[in-house]
């Protein structure tokens, strides 16, 4: 399990990470979201002990990364952002090296290497030299080294970067599967990935955590969450509109199409009424004897929330 408390990192006068705290328990997959330069990689580098923190603490399975450096590091598997590899080795030799360094007992190294190669689909390039590999294979080789010792904690910096859609899908499945028995922290800027494999997500911007919750909770926070799309007939459009606006659950009505027979409109919920708006609209239609052709409560969209929270002043 990963415990991060009030983590700060200053580079000279520049503040890269500004008081980040979170906990990832065993069985959790925490997605780490944020625009480029938000401090994701810097945070991960401090969590893995590569960069010393300016302030704050990181504990891995109870061991402090600075005080019990070696014990803490032994529990981590880490895929750095650039997926670095020794270019003069073959895939298998590199994984053997990683296994030895990660303290896999000598008698189990072959089995560990075979398993990592199988899990990350590296069989076709097993004996190939690293510097002749394509980007996808390079990335997976580095990914394989991070899981070779079956660590309790996995830290993956953009694990699907540079992969094709099929490979992305496989890796997401893999992260989800491994997440059942490990504590996983992974960063991404692909939002669908969060929904596909995370149990929880954090959005950070300019070094600060701006949102923290399950993907569902985060989606509910998006401005479009709970918006109701209605297409109904039975009254003049303008009349329906007035009735909709009168509802205490609605905030505004955005008319898409209006005629003498009916209306197509998008109704935004009033603050705190997102859960109730759908029922209120359908109740209204029943009272007024309207025929409902379409009634849809929209789910919040992560990308909208992400944009709202991480908007730069210049964009406004």
């Amino acid at each position, binding site marked *: 399990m990963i415990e991060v408390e009030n983590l700060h990192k200053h580079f000279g006068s520049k503040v890269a990470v500004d008081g980040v705290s979170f906990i990832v328990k065993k069985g959790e997959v925490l997605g780490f979201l944020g625009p480029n330069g938000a401090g994701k990689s810097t945070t991960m*580098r401090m969590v*893995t*002990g*590569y*960069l*010393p923190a300016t302030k704050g603490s990181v504990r891995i399975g109870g061991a402090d990364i600075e005080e019990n*450096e*070696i*014990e803490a*590091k*032994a529990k*981590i598997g*880490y895929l*750095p952002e*650039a997926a*670095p*590899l*020794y*270019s*003069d*080795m073959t895939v298998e030799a590199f994984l053997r*090296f*990683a296994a*030895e*360094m*990660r*303290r896999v007992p000598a008698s189990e190294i072959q089995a560990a290497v075979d398993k990592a190669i199988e899990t990350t689909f590296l069989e076709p390039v097993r004996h190939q030299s690293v510097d002749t590999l394509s980007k996808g294979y390079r990335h997976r080789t*580095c990914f394989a*080294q991070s899981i070779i010792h079956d660590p309790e904690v996995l830290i993956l910096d953009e694990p699907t970067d540079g992969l094709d859609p099929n490979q992305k899908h496989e890796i997401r499945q893999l992260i989800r599967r491994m997440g059942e028995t490990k504590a996983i922290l992974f960063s991404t800027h692909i939002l669908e990935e969060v929904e596909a494999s995370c149990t929880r997500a954090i959005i950070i911007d300019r070094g600060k955590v701006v949102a923290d919750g399950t993907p569902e909770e985060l989606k509910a926070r998006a401005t479009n969450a709970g918006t109701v799309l209605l297409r109904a007939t039975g009254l003049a459009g303008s009349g329906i509109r007035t009735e909709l606006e009168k509802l205490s659950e609605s905030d505004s009505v955005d008319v898409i199409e209006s005629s003498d027979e009916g209306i197509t409109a998008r109704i935004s919920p009033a603050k705190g009424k997102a859960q109730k708006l759908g029922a209120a609209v359908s109740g209204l239609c029943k009272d007024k004897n309207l025929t409902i052709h379409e009634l849809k409560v929209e789910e919040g969209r992560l990308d909208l929330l992400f944009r709202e929270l991480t908007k730069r002043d210049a964009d406004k």
Partner: protein
Amino acid sequence: MDAFITLIVAFAIPTAIVAAIFVGLLFYVLPREVRTIFKRELKSYFTSPIAYVLFVVFLGISNALSFFFTGVLEGGEADLFLPYFQYLPWYLILIAPAVGMRLWSEEQRLGTMELMLTMPLAPWHAILGKYLAAAVVLFTMLVLSFPIVWTVNYLGEPDNGVIMAGFVATYFVALCFLAVTSVISAITRSQLVALLVSVAICLVLWLGGLPHLSEMLMNLKGGWLVAWPVLKLVNMVGVMPHFTELAKGVLGLRDVVFFISFIAFCLIATSVAIRLKRA
């Protein structure tokens, strides 16, 4: 035939002793992590052309120059010390940094430093593992220069003990230059910069110990107040007097301690440089 056996004994034994020191350190004294890094590093020297190129360059230069220009052959008396060992450190000023330049700069260029330093090992494991691998490359290079020893033994009856001492002294100098290169390669990600800066520092280290410089310092003492402490320092860490003493066959404790503490200092400085690089 007897001469040949003496020769084998005179050189196989010291070679075996140094090899035994390496094996003993790696397999019995130091932790497994050091050995793993050492193996990877050594293998990478010999899977790339770099080690072979350096061997050819070193052996080519050292043998050619001593045979053709310094007159081992014409000397009549086969005294290997002056013509051969006096020049070896000069070649090492270039060769040792060329062997060591990739130690840490390559690691930074590839980004693998991030992997290495997030593995469960202390930085000194990595520093030592890498240093020992490069030290073995330099050792192999010196062992490969045995044909010249064989030649002078064929031509005359040299004092093999002194020749051996020359090799020991040369190896210590090579290890010092390598340690300097280790520090510099931790500072820059460019191998070329690491090479050039290391060569410059090794040159200063070597020349700093020139006997004339000490005399000059004596005369300057009253004058250049600012430059004097700097020159004095360079003169103090100058490698040459220690080399000369050892190479004469005087196995002085003082000189051995100098070399070992110099190397230890540089390896510690390497770890400081790596720490600063991460902060």
